């Protein structure tokens, strides 16, 4: 019964279909808001659906020199990883998350899967652009995973210490984190955690691959990089995976920093959660994307070491010492 329920959670709510609907809605809103910031009209909100539907009707082409199995596997791995991830995100007042034991650690291991899938696809495609994209993706991943680990650790340690009455401890259950915040106030408003929250805001464009960190897939440099050889349903699967990832990283941010609920009605809480995700996306993705250009890979790496890693380290040290 539990297994069945787990599969349902991964396929329908909050993973799978629900996450996809929200992810595509966010992608559409993102394009729309970006267009308005550039004084354009922008595409209709259902454009991501239309794009995917069009891609699904196209034929699947595999380069002769590509490693066939890895090339076919890559988008599936990326999609599956994110569909599972989405089920771990608790929606406060609506859904408690699939596992309540150390799911923060599981998420940390699952989050890089789309990036790994892109790397796998890029290197399997046997195109030089894919190879450059692969090396860039690897560098940028190293750069943003470090601050993420520190952010998760500082949140876990802060709550763990508080729960242990000031003694050493770490709480790796996202649900416990959310419950603790309902009583003690949001972590995003906690002065100790503000640097970590800022670091998370910088981590978001890095992991989502938007400007100024859209380096692996830079169109004018490596022509979409690892995704260059992909087309049709396989590319659609990458897009779907990316939409799911939007939901996962935004949802994780909201659950970790601002999980507050409005009332007991689950529907209003759900809308409230989506609204907070939307605000987070506008702040960290859309505005940043339309206000910056693209870094070179070494500049981006240096930036990630200098700013978000240091911010996250700040929080971690403060949590440790206080």
């Amino acid at each position: 019964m539990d297994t069945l329920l787990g599969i349902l959670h991964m396929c329908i709510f909050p993973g799978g279909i629900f996450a996809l609907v929200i992810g595509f809605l966010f992608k559409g809103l993102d394009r729309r808001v970006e267009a308005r910031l550039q004084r354009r009209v922008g595409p209709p909100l259902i454009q991501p659906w239309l794009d995917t539907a069009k891609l699904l009707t196209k034929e699947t082409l595999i380069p002769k020199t590509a490693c066939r199995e890895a090339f076919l596997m890559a988008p599936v791995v990326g999609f599956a990883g994110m569909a599972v991830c989405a089920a771990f995100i608790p929606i406060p007042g609506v859904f408690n998350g699939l596992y309540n034991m150390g799911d923060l650690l599981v998420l940390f291991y699952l989050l890089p899967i789309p990036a790994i899938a892109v790397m796998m696809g890029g290197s399997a495609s046997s195109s030089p652009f894919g190879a450059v994209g692969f090396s860039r993706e690897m560098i940028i991943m190293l750069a943003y995973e470090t601050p993420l680990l520190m952010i998760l650790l500082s949140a876990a340690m802060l709550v763990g210490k508080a729960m242990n009455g000031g003694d050493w401890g770490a709480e790796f259950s996202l649900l416990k984190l959310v419950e603790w915040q309902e009583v003690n106030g949001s972590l995003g408003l906690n002065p100790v955690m503000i640097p970590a929250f800022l670091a998370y805001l910088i981590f978001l464009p890095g992991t989502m691959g938007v400007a100024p960190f859209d380096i692996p897939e830079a169109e004018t440099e490596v022509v979409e990089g690892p995704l260059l050889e992909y087309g049709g349903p396989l590319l659609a699967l990458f897009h779907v995976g990316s939409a799911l990832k939007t939901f996962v990283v935004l949802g994780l941010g909201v659950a970790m920093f601002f999980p507050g609920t409005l009332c007991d009605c689950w529907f209003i809480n759900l809308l409230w959660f989506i609204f907070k995700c939307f605000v987070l996306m506008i702040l960290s993705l859309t505005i940043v994307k339309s206000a910056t250009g693209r870094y070179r890979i070494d500049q981006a790496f240096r930036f990630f070491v200098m700013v978000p890693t240091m911010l996250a380290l700040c929080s971690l040290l403060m949590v440790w010492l206080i």
Partner: protein
Amino acid sequence: MSISTYTMPLGPVHVALEEPVYFHLTCEGENIKNVELTSGHVHRGMEQLAMQRNLVKNVTLTERVCSLCSNSHSFTYSMVVENALELEIPERAKYLRVMAEEIKRIASHLFNTAIQAHIAGFKSLFMHVMEVREIMQDVKETVYGNRMNLAANCIGGVKCDVTDELLEYILKQMDVIEPQLEEITDIFNTNHIMLTRTKGLGLLPQEDAIALGVAGPVARGSGLVKDVRRDTPYAAYPKLDFDVIVEQGCDVHSRTMVRLRELFESIKLIRQCCNKMPKGEVRYPMGKIPVNEAFAHSEAPRGEVAYYIRTNGTDTPARLKWRVPSYMNWKALSVMMRGCQIAEVALVLNSIDPCVSCTER
């Protein structure tokens, strides 16, 4: 080729290129070891074609060599034919020619600047610059009836007079565009990402610039005071007041700044043209074609354009030859691309504002 290097194609069709040209980049990781270039994708045999058409038809032909500096070609071609015919053009026509040239220059420089933002991944800035450029496109369309090829020049003067009403409109649009250009210049001069991406990139030291004989903003970006409009003035330029913009940085950023600062000089020139222009005729008839040879050159947005013509008494030229600035600037790429990265190739290439169609014609 050793194991650690690989070849990466850039072009002939590539997002960062407006025109087809093919770079073979030999890379080691992100670093470029060698650049080889194949061109000729847009060779149309225009010089041969020009020798089969009569002098008047060639005005239309030369205007279609390239899109962004189309006016410079018909302008210089008209001048070279007038030199061969020993024909002096009306005073008003000289001012009208300068005006058309400077309007095209603003649009061309803004286009190049916008593409730089696009290559650096700065989509909003690209949109912004293109939006400002639209003001110039409107001016072109309103005054000349066309957004790209103005068809302003003809042998003996200009095709159409510009009425006082239109001159007033041009002046008004100049007032509209000027503050917006100041804003754009400020963004390119202060924006963190644009500076980190373009400062110190694609260095062309002054001695290399002299040795390679580069032209236009590439030369002026490397500290060379080189401008045909000032060195050997033609049309109405001797009577107009403007500065030659020079930057000492020798990098991609200084070339951009030369282009952006030149916009204000162009606005100054257009304003002077509108105010100083004498009344009178705009075109003189051609007269008899002698056996002669002549040379003319002018400062196109990308640098010096030079035309040579030999007439044999018939209405078709015996030889028509032109040299475009991109040909000289192209050679400088080998110096600029020394030790740069894959991410920078497109930016460096764009900084010489290459006109492939002009060069291959």
